[in-house]
C-alpha cells in the first residue's frame, strides 16, 4: 500500500487574488498534487437573459456590454450583427470599418489584460502594470469616441452611436506605432523569461480533439494547433477584406496546446490586430454612421444564431424573436463559459501553482461565464 496522503479540500475563491473575479475553485489535493478541480460558478450571475426579455432591442445593448466587460465593444458588435441579420438590413461601409477598428482595438485591450493578469498570476507584477498602462491609451481612444472607458454602448443595431472623433485616426496611428515596441519589450520581459517559460510550458496541455469536443474556441483552440478563426471561417462584417494571419500554437517551448502557447497566441494576435487596424484605417471611407439605424426595431418572427470571434473565442448570440419589440429569448454562448468547463481536466495531476497558471492561460471573464 502506497502512502496515501489524505485528500484535502482547498477553496480557491470566491475571494482570491488570482481567480480573476468571483470564481470558486474547489481543489481536491493530495499534498500539493491536484486530484480534481471543481469550478463553482454563478457568483456573478446577473440575469442577463432575463433582462433581455424585458428590454427592447436597442436597450439590450448596454447589457451586452456588461457581460464580458473586458471586450464590451465586441459584445456590442456581435449583438448588432445578430439583430441585423434577423432584420435583414445592411449597414453603411464606414460603420463596418469603424466596427472592425473598434473591435480589434478592443481585442488588443482585452489581450493586454489577459497577458498582464497572466503575468500577475505567475508572479510578475511589473508586466501587468505595463499592460494596463498601454491599455489606458486604448481606453482613452474609446472614451474620446463614445465617452465611456469601459462599457461603451457604442455599436448599435444598424450603426454606431457616434461618429469618430476627428483626431481619432491620428491618435490611433500614434498609439499603434508606440505600441509595437512595447510588445517587444513585454516579450523580453515576460514571454521569453526562463522562469516564465518553465512555469507555463508543458503545463495544462490541451490536445486538439479534446478542445474541439469541449467546444473550445478562440485563442485557446488555436493554441492547440488549429487555425480556426471565425473571422476567416465564417466571415461576418467585412473581415474577408483584410489580410491577416491566424497564429497557432507551435509548442515552441513545450507541447502544442500548453499554457505558454495559449499565452503566446494572444501576444501574436495583438500583432495581427494591429495589422487589421492599420489596413482599416487606410481604407476608412467617409459616410454617415447613424443613417441605417432603424427607428423601431421590430424583427420578424424567427430565430438566429450568430457567432463572432470575440477576444476569447466564439461569442454566439441565439435570439428568438416573436415579432414584438422585445426579444423573446436571448441566449448567449460565451467562450469563457466553455473554457472554464475544461479547467478540471486540464489541472489534474498538476501542482497547486499550476492551477493558477492554467486558469490564467484560458483567460476567462466571469461576467461572461455567469452572465
Amino acid at each position: 500500500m502506497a502512502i496515501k496522503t489524505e485528500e484535502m479540500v482547498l477553496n480557491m475563491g470566491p475571494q482570491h487574488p488570482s481567480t480573476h473575479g468571483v470564481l470558486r475553485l474547489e481543489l481536491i489535493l493530495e499534498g500539493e498534487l491536484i486530484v480534481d478541480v471543481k469550478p463553482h460558478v454563478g457568483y456573478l450571475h446577473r440575469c442577463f437573459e432575463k433582462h433581455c426579455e424585458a428590454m427592447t432591442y436597442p436597450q439590450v445593448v448596454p447589457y451586452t456590454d456588461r457581460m464580458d466587460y473586458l471586450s464590451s465593444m465586441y459584445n456590442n458588435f456581435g449583438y448588432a450583427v445578430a439583430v441585423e441579420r434577423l432584420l435583414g438590413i445592411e449597414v453603411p461601409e464606414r460603420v463596418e470599418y469603424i466596427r472592425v477598428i473598434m473591435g480589434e482595438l478592443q481585442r488588443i485591450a482585452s489581450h493586454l489584460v489577459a497577458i498582464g493578469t497572466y503575468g500577475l498570476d505567475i508572479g510578475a507584477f511589473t508586466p501587468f502594470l505595463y499592460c494596463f498602462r498601454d491599455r489606458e491609451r486604448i481606453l482613452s481612444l474609446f472614451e474620446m469616441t463614445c465617452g465611456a472607458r469601459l462599457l461603451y454602448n457604442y455599436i448599435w443595431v444598424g450603426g454606431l452611436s457616434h461618429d469618430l472623433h476627428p483626431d481619432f485616426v491620428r491618435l490611433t496611428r500614434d498609439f499603434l506605432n508606440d505600441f509595437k515596441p512595447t510588445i517587444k519589450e513585454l516579450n523580453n520581459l515576460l514571454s521569453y523569461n526562463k522562469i516564465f517559460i518553465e512555469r507555463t510550458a508543458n503545463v495544462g496541455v490541451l490536445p486538439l480533439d479534446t478542445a474541439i469536443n469541449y467546444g473550445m474556441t478562440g485563442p485557446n483552440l488555436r493554441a492547440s494547433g488549429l487555425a480556426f478563426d471565425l473571422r476567416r471561417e465564417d466571415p461576418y462584417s467585412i473581415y474577408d477584406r483584410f489580410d491577416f494571419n491566424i497564429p497557432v500554437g507551435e509548442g515552441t517551448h513545450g507541447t502544442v496546446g500548453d499554457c505558454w502557447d495559449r499565452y503566446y497566441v494572444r501576444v501574436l494576435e495583438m500583432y495581427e490586430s494591429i495589422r487589421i487596424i492599420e489596413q482599416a484605417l487606410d481604407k476608412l471611407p467617409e459616410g454617415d454612421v447613424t443613417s441605417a439605424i432603424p427607428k423601431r426595431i421590430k424583427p420578424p418572427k424567427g430565430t438566429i444564431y450568430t457567432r463572432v470571434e470575440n477576444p476569447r473565442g466564439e461569442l454566439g448570440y441565439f435570439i428568438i424573436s416573436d415579432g414584438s419589440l422585445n426579444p423573446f429569448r436571448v441566449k448567449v454562448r460565451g467562450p469563457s463559459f466553455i473554457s472554464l468547463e475544461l479547467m478540471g481536466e486540464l489541472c489534474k495531476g498538476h501542482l497547486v501553482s499550476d492551477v493558477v497558471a492554467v486558469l490564467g492561460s484560458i483567460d476567462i471573464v466571469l461576467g461572461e461565464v455567469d452572465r
Partner: protein
Amino acid sequence: MSIYDVIFYLFAILTIGSGYLVVTSKNIVHSAFYLLFTLFGVAGLYVLLAADFIAIVQLMVYVGGILILLLFGVMLTNKVTDVKIRTGTIHIIPAVIGTGLLMGVIVSMMLRTNWKSEPGELPFTTTYGLGRILLTDYVLVFELLAMLLLIALIGAASIARRDNE
C-alpha cells in the same frame, strides 16, 4: 550568585521544563514544538560549557534539521481527525514510579561520585581545535562518518521511497 549561575539556571529550567512538556503533552505536534525549546536550552548549556561550536551545531542540526524532520514526520504519519493529535500513553503510574526511581538513582550516583572536577584549560574557541582533532586523531572516524551519512542517506531515502511509485 553570579550572572553565570543565573543564566545556567535559566537554561536548565528551560531545558527541563520544556523537556517535561515534551513527554507529557497530549498533542504530538506540541511535543515537537516543545522539543525546540529543550534543544535550544541544551544549546545554551553547551555555550556555558565553552563548547561554542557544538552549541551551534546543536542549533543547526537539531533545531534546523532533526526537529523539522520530526515535524514533517509527525505531519505525515498522524491521522488527524479533528483538532487534536492525541498520542496514547501506556501504564502511566508504573512508568512514573520507574523513571522516578531511575532518576533518583542516577542523580544520587552523579552527586556521590567524586568527579575529578577541575576546570580545564579549554581554548575559548573550539572550532579550530576540533578541526585539528578531526584531521589527526579522528581522521578515520571522519571518513567513516561520511560513509555512515552516505548509507543513512541512501537507506533513508530508499526506505521512504519504497513502494511509493
